[in-house]
């Protein structure tokens, strides 16, 4: 059974239709890259899957772990093991990174009927994962994403992912704003989390990230539709010819972003 099955998904924001019929199946353990020019709907797809309410789904179905995903609240999707690494991680002043992450972990454990993790056990767990991303201890005690550099925010997203161990991780332009060293570090973290029980959807504009996180499948999204799918070589082809090589125009305005 597929972990995620998207059928003819249409979504609008306001009057404007952004997703115009997406079909995609992701099996357990697979890594799918979704590439596309600005404004093609990549981020919208990621946000719709996570349950962002500014988007209205007008048509289609999404099945996740055998359940109707679109009928689930965002927090329940998360508790069912779906994780979105945000393109623009949100700052939450006043709440420490550790406190936030423990609340997140415990919300999921509670949902699964497991006992909550206390502060001590949690700290131990966190230390492990910190090494993976070479996270600074100081970052843990700081308020969530507040005053973090762009790179620190992205690293923090993957760190959260490492702690929450999702079944399906959606990485929304995790490479944007990263220099090459940070990119390698983040990719290293992501690769360490790959496994037969964890699927990933990697949304990116550039092929660069896919040099480090090598996908099983690559899909090209243009004007709200998946126009081409293939193996990892498709990404390389895109790198050479650009989206124009596929006859796709790069829209100037990134409409789909929130």
């Amino acid at each position, binding site marked *: 059974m597929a972990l995620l099955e998207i059928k003819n998904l249409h979504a609008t924001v306001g009057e404007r239709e952004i997703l115009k019929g997406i079909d995609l199946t992701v099996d357990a353990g697979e890594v799918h890259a979704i590439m596309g020019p600005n404004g093609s709907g990549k981020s919208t797809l990621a946000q719709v899957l*996570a*349950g*962002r*309410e*500014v988007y209205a789904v007008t048509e289609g179905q999404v099945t996740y772990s055998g359940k109707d995903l679109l009928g689930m*609240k*965002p*927090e329940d*999707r*998360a*508790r069912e093991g779906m*994780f*979105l690494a*945000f393109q623009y*991680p*949100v*700052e*939450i*002043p*006043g*709440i420490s990174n550790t*406190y*936030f*992450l423990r*609340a*997140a972990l415990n*919300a*999921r454990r509670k*949902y699964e009927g497991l006992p909550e993790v206390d502060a001590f056990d949690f700290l131990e767990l966190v230390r492990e994962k910190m090494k993976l991303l070479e996270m600074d201890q100081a970052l843990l005690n700081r*308020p969530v994403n507040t005053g973090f550099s762009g790179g620190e925010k992205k690293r923090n997203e993957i760190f*959260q992912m490492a702690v*929450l161990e999702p079944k399906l991780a959606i990485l929304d332009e995790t490479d944007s704003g990263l220099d090459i060293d940070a990119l390698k570090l983040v990719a290293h973290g992501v690769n360490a989390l790959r496994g037969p029980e964890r699927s990933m959807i990697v949304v990116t504009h550039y092929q660069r990230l896919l040099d480090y996180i090598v996908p099983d499948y690559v899909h090209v999204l243009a004007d709200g539709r998946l126009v081409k799918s293939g193996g990892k070589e498709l990404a390389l082809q895109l790198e050479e010819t650009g989206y124009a090589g596929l006859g796709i125009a790069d829209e100037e305005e990134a409409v789909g972003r*929130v």
Partner: protein
Amino acid sequence: MSDSSNTIETFANQEYKWGFVTDIDSDSIPRGLNEDVIRLISAKKHEPEWLTDWRLKAYRHWLTMKEPTWANVHYPPIDYQDIVYYAAPKTKKDGPKSLDEVDPELLRTYEKLGIPLQERELLAGVAVDAVFDSVSVATTFKEKLKGMGIIFCSFSEAVREHPDLVRQYLGSVVPASDNFFAALNSAVFSDGSFCYVPKGVRCPMELSTYFRINAKDTGQFERTLIIADEGAYVSYLEGCTAPMRDTNQLHAAVVELVALDNAQVKYSTVQNWYPGDKEGKGGIYNFVTKRGACRGVNSKISWTQVETGSAITWKYPSCLLMGENSVGEFYSVALTNNWQQADTGTKMIHIGKNTTSTIVSKGISAGHGQNTYRGGVKILKSAAGARNYSQCDSLLLGDKCGAHTFPYLEVKNTSSQVEHEASTSKIGEDQIFYCRQRGISTEDAVSMIVHGFCKQVFRELPMEFAVEAQKLLGVSLEGSVG
């Protein structure tokens, strides 16, 4: 409109839990205010002549004063002749001599409010004075405190038993003519708490007064006077609730604190008067004057307040820093939800050398609530080396509420340092979504963000009450996000 922004807007649907009415016979006087009413109140309390005269003088002065209009609050004119100025639960004798004589209905009321008047182990660390409408109905742990020379009793009792102390300090920090509401209070005040901690004594337990308005159309005008003699320490907490009524009720209290050499007074308030309903009907008008005088060297007065109730709050707990090296602190969380309005803050008047003050104010606005911080820092010429730090943060939930900040700084010497920081933030839909995407429900996310915002103030509260305050804040905001 998305769900989560809807939920933020309707952030306050939780019912007020303390809104019940106690069915008890009450002895009240007719509505209205004149010199005879004041004489009657004074007579009912068997007061000495000097105090009756003091009241009358205050009343005559009040007649010459105008209700202040500078605050950022709006309400229909108050008819001061339509208020009952004295109401007391009927007792057979003058007053209960011990808890056994207190009307069981009253004890049940406090039980229901979670304020134990039995001196049992549960809250053994807290001595409580309970004020019901106009009078104090019970004070606990009086004997134990007496052994250490600490006087903790109702104001009326203090007038009877310790007239010299009362006479010496009454009105010495907040003069009867100070402002419109203080003058009114001075004329008609009914009861309140009195506390004196003698030289060198550290009060071993939290002292607490619990105010309850019950009777209809009455005002509550209590007075609290706390004196910490040289080297003494006392931590004091006040809590308040009132029944739900669809008319507004007036509460105009005066609190005076005095700290002599090396003395310290910590005064914490959890104010939860009835805030009115979702349409803004009813609720308490809370017009309160609170001021502390750091008279001695190295003395310290800290105000910590959590203001979640009242339809209108008008309140500026302040410090007169007279003694050298004296310290004033003000930590405040003020929440306005639905149609509540708060205009609150502090005044720090630096008079002595090397005096320091800290102001941390956190305002939370939800629904149609309007929250104003008004602060005054005044550093006189005499206050060489004085320092002040002010931090003033506002948090908005939804887009129909408002936050306003009016800091006034007046510095008259060059050796002093004044710092002011301010911020305004909003719980955004993106923050809520981020939390939900991590598995945290909207309600938990808001409560987490609000508590994170208030942390700095909550940690100044005595432990037991910090927990209470957190719960209260949760309740007051429950349903605003869902």
